[in-house]
């Protein structure tokens, strides 16, 4: 299956600094259609029927989320575009914003109209400060042309924190606080930013909206699988010949993406969905990419046969330990203990009980962490224990042997 550019149809085609090049390609027609021909409820209905699910990683049905916010009581409602793309290996939102900021602005215009928000924020990660100009210019040009009379869009910059991509921590960060996850319920569509109904959508999710409104939910829902409609933008990196952005119809095979398109060779495994993503061994390379199987943020990091499993998992866990906000103990302490165990294993100082300890810790963290960070951090550990258990067992027997050489009893 080749690439299918629907969301990215304007990328590297229009001039991201010139709204006229966007208008020449049906720009802002979807917003006009929604506002002139559809009620907010009909707009939400269209998105619901399309089957669009969140593209940030969690995959919550977009239309259902909007409906909650629409129906929530509140004098003020907010829309937030999550542009805090911090998931390791993910750079699709960067590519989208640098090449087609206008579709994003239009998508936000439609979303705000549907839920009844008059103020919207784009939460942009600090690492993407260089995108501030192009985004501001897109907003200003859209405003000048009269497309944003119903909406004020503000950009809020992060200051370097992975957890702020988690929606509740993100809201705390906009409020000027440490970005720490909140207890839920209440969920943001009923009580979000400053306690008001709030919708938080990923950049890529919002990019889908103009296409759905313009071409209709029926057209959109013909793409993809039963539970995964539309296309997905994948960020492919690691041991591949052609790293980069690929837009594929959902349900395509991992093999098509990493081998046929990106040119990977001697694949050992691919992690799909970023640091918190599932690890797929080469034996399962024909797995479909969809919400039913494996997807996440669409980051695909490929590791070839030369790579060491434990070294990879150790580095991934180090990332989580550094980025844990520290609010809940299972995540704060769990990630640290895992780093300690995996670090010992990585340097050949493992112990028999390490595998059991990793499994026990994983279960506790997945059950009791406050947010997605702690809940998902064990995934690469458990997946590699499942598919590459030999690597762990060998490392432990090597460790025992190494200690015996040094005259230390194991």
């Amino acid at each position, binding site marked *: 299956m080749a690439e299918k550019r629907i969301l990215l149809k304007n990328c590297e085609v229009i001039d991201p600094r010139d709204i006229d090049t966007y208008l020449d390609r049906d720009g802002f027609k979807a917003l006009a259609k929604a506002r002139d021909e559809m009620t907010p409820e009909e707009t939400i209905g269209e998105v619901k029927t399309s089957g669009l699910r969140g593209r940030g990683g969690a995959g919550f049905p977009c239309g259902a989320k909007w409906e909650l916010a629409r129906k929530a009581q509140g004098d003020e409602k907010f829309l937030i575009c999550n542009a805090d793309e911090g998931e390791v290996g993910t750079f699709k939102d960067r590519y989208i914003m640098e090449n087609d900021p206008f579709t994003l602005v239009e998508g936000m215009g439609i979303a705000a109209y549907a839920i009844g928000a008059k103020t919207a924020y784009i939460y942009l990660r600090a690492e993407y400060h260089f995108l501030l100009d192009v985004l501001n210019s897109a907003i200003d040009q859209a405003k000048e042309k009269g497309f944003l009379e119903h909406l004020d869009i503000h950009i809020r910059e992060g200051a370097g924190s992975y957890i702020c991509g988690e929606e509740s921590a993100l809201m705390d960060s906009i409020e000027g606080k440490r970005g720490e996850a909140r207890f839920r319920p209440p969920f943001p569509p009923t009580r979000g930013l400053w306690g008001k109904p709030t919708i938080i959508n990923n950049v890529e999710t919002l990019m889908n909206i103009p296409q759905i409104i313009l071409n209709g939910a029926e057209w959109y829902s013909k793409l993809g699988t039963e539970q995964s409609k539309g296309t997905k933008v994948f960020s492919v990196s690691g041991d591949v010949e052609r790293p980069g952005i690929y837009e594929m119809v959902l349900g395509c095979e991992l093999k098509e993406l990493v081998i046929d398109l990106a040119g990977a060779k001697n694949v050992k495994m691919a992690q799909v969905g970023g640091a918190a993503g599932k690890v797929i061994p080469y034996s399962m390379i024909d797995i479909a990419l969809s919400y039913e199987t494996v997807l996440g943020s669409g980051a695909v*990091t490929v590791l070839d046969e030369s790579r060491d499993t434990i070294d990879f998992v150790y*580095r991934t866990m180090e990332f989580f330990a550094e980025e844990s906000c520290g609010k809940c103990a299972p995540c704060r302490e769990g990630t640290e203990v895992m780093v300690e165990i995996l670090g010992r294993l990585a340097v050949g100082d493992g112990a028999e009980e390490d595998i059991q300890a990793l499994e026990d810790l994983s279960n506790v963290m997945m059950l009791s962490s406050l947010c997605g960070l702690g809940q998902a951090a064990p995934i690469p550990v458990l997946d590699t224990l499942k598919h590459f258990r030999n690597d762990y067992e060998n490392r432990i027997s090597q460790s025992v042997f190494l200690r015996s050489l040094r005259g230390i009893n194991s």
Partner: protein
Amino acid sequence: MSENEKKPLVDEREREKLLAILEDAQGKLGYLPEGFIANTAHSLGLSISEIYGVSTFYSFLSTRPLGKNVIRICKSVPCYLKNSRMIIESIQKELGITPGETTPDGRFSFELTNCIGACDKAPAMLVNDDVHGTLTPDKIPEVLRACV
């Protein structure tokens, strides 16, 4: 400044400005000095510990002086797979400092950071706000020379 002198926070929405205030100061002063944190706390009607808490939470804010140019090398897996270690070593060699340090002349600080979303150009680093990708050790001296 005593706690009683603190102005009451008129509107909790005022606090929305906090991160932007800190980012602005970080840009201008290169770090967030104690006095600045105390003044910000006073003007927003928040406690010093609240401001300090926010200042130390985010990795792009610093409570100790940073160099004029801040280099952040990505150490996450996609860059690691593309030999980011070599880049880290050559920066270390060129500047004579290790991650977390600042050169004695105050020209450079050098830090390791998590994924900067430039994995298609791995190994990559940020020099201040600019991304430098597809790095090799021989490109490093040139990148550093371009920094004022």
